[in-house]
């Protein structure tokens, strides 16, 4: 029983990590290629979730909604890139932080304007509903397994995209030398728009997938945005591999902390106190891990080349 619970929690940690990776991958890609720190990434996540909920409600098909989330987030990303973001590439991080902070306000309040203040309904597709038994685990939600699968596919896809395709070659060239790529005659502005839209689409996908599991509402992107930043900072900003490792570290730390800290503290204090103190510590745990990582590896675990 205990072993089964531990196994299930490990799987939960992995699954949370994969969800975070979907967010973090786009964020780190955008930083790696354009050097842009994008606080509005959480807003694109929200756009994806809303698009999915609205289309799923109108057509009755989650899968159409999922497609819509990709399209809507990519389109929103491209528009924002064209109107605002491209003016920020040459600015310092301070300006980027501020402008994208302003974008959060615009997106959140804009979404409320259009969709109202109440959470929207979005449910898991029937195909993936319910739980299945796994070796050592009594039952595990099929949808969560599917998320792990999607995360693995996205990781593989990004790897192939970056190492095997022309677009990937351009992305890598853009990372190492912006002027060189311009000299090669590649239209760098278009490249940047494409990369930004790609990162946005990933955020939108994450928003739709997670929205079905959690709740679709204004402001849903902010907590996950901060977690995604923790992920990419631990992993090394700009590194997809770092994002993957960082996401798994954060996912496992958070899940296992919530699961293990209260009983561990229960050994030294009354159970009721341990429950609250343990929960407080668990909430702080990932930030503590991040501070520790940065204290010893100031550029994260897999620093991208300077």
């Amino acid at each position, binding site marked *: 029983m205990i072993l089964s619970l531990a196994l299930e929690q490990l799987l*939960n940690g992995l699954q949370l990590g994969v969800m975070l990776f979907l967010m973090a991958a786009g964020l780190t890609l955008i930083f790696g290629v354009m050097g842009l720190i994008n606080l509005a990434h959480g807003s694109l996540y929200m756009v994806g979730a809303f698009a999915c909920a609205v289309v799923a409600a109108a057509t009755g098909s989650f899968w159409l909604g999922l497609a819509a989330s990709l399209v809507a987030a990519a389109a929103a990303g491209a528009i924002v890139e064209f109107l605002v973001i491209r003016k920020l590439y040459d600015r310092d991080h301070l300006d980027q932080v501020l402008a994208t902070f302003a974008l959060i306000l615009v997106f959140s309040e804009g979404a409320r304007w259009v969709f109202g203040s109440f959470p929207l309904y979005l449910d898991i597709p029937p195909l993936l509903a319910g739980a299945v038994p796994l070796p050592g685990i009594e039952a595990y939600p099929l949808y969560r397994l599917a998320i792990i699968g999607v995360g693995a596919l996205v990781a593989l896809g990004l790897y192939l995209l970056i190492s095997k395709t022309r677009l990937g070659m351009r992305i890598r060239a853009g990372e190492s030398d912006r002027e060189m790529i311009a000299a090669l005659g590649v239209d760098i502005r278009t490249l940047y728009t494409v990369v930004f839209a790609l990162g946005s689409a990933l955020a939108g996908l994450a928003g739709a997938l997670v929205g079905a599991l959690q709740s679709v509402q204004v402001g849903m992107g902010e907590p996950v945005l901060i977690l995604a930043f923790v992920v990419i900072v631990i992993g090394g900003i700009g590194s997809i591999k770092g994002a993957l490792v960082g996401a798994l570290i954060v996912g496992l730390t958070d899940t296992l902390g919530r699961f293990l800290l209260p009983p561990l503290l229960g050994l030294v204090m009354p159970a009721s106190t341990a429950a609250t103190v343990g929960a407080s510590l668990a909430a702080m745990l990932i930030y503590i891990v991040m501070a520790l990582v940065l204290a010893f590896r100031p550029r994260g675990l897999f620093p991208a080349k300077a």
Partner: protein
Amino acid sequence: MKTLLSAATLALSLSVSSLAVAEPIKVGLITTLSGGGAGLGVDTRDGFMLAIKQSGNTDITVITEDDAQKPELAVQIADKMIQSDQVDILTGIVWSNLLMAVAPSAVAQGKIYVSTNAAPAALAGEKCNPLYFNAAYQNDNLHEAVGEYANKDYKKIFIMAPNYPAGKDSLTGFKRYYKGELAAEVYTKVGQTDYAAEIAQIRASGADGVFAFLPGGMGIAFMKQYAQSGVKTPIMGPGFSFSQDVLPAIGDAALGVKNSGQWVKDLDNEANKKFVPAFQKEYGRLPSVYAVQAYDAAQLILSAAAKASVKDTKAFAAALKAADIQSPRGKFKFNNNLHPIQDIYITEVVKEDGVLTNKTVSKIFTDHGDAYAKDCKM
């Protein structure tokens, strides 16, 4: 010129009031109309304004402002309403933490505060105040009701709430009435949206029931994930986790959940039979409990205004305390700590004509007050 004019107005209003027509009352309604919690604030405002509109009373001016769920902003608005608009009564705040920022200082300045929702324990006991009224409940009430209900059918319950004061009050309230064994007591992160770890613990705990207090988006996320987990242990919770504002977003996952409320849509009384269709007609949606609470707060103010002058704070407070209203909840009166004494019901989430809503299962408490009233020396 302006002074002249206002002097004239003053003279006029004096002569009018001598004709025993109610004098103007200014009410400041501070609630959350933007940000994540705006749904509750919108219902609060709409419920309040419905009562004012129905009364046809034109002496009452309501100034509405958005606190964006930020305590600092709420304080600033309260200052403005008191100092600049010179309101007589404040009301409308949804959240305990905002209420704690505004209400103690407002009543210290001689203003009346009528709470439409938030009811922290801190203001119900020793620190109760003759100008602070709560038209909703005391925070613990709905948790206590579920605790009492759980005694009937459950032996070993898993209880869970967010790690903040309202969460701790919730579990304390539940435990005050629940006599069985606890499978575990778990506090989750405020704003947490993934509950896989907790659900796994529920599965492993061998509990025969789960009590969860997870308001707003937290509850939506938990319920959806729970429904997919394959865990069949029945869920119960306080009414605000399953009220009309969140049910559509949870979807069928909420069906059959037992919860508690001091008001249910199907309560059989005259006031309720008028209120629900009126609200639906006016705003095109079902009212939530927040709308009812605000509706009653407005009714209370209207009833007091008919009896006393708001400038005579003491008399006005006494008129409020009389609680001479027809509440959609049925019976309603104030305890010595100016929190309600009312009936509390166990309800169940059902689907009516494709819409999720609550229906009454049984009355669990009759004329229920709260545990803090005894500490209130009023």
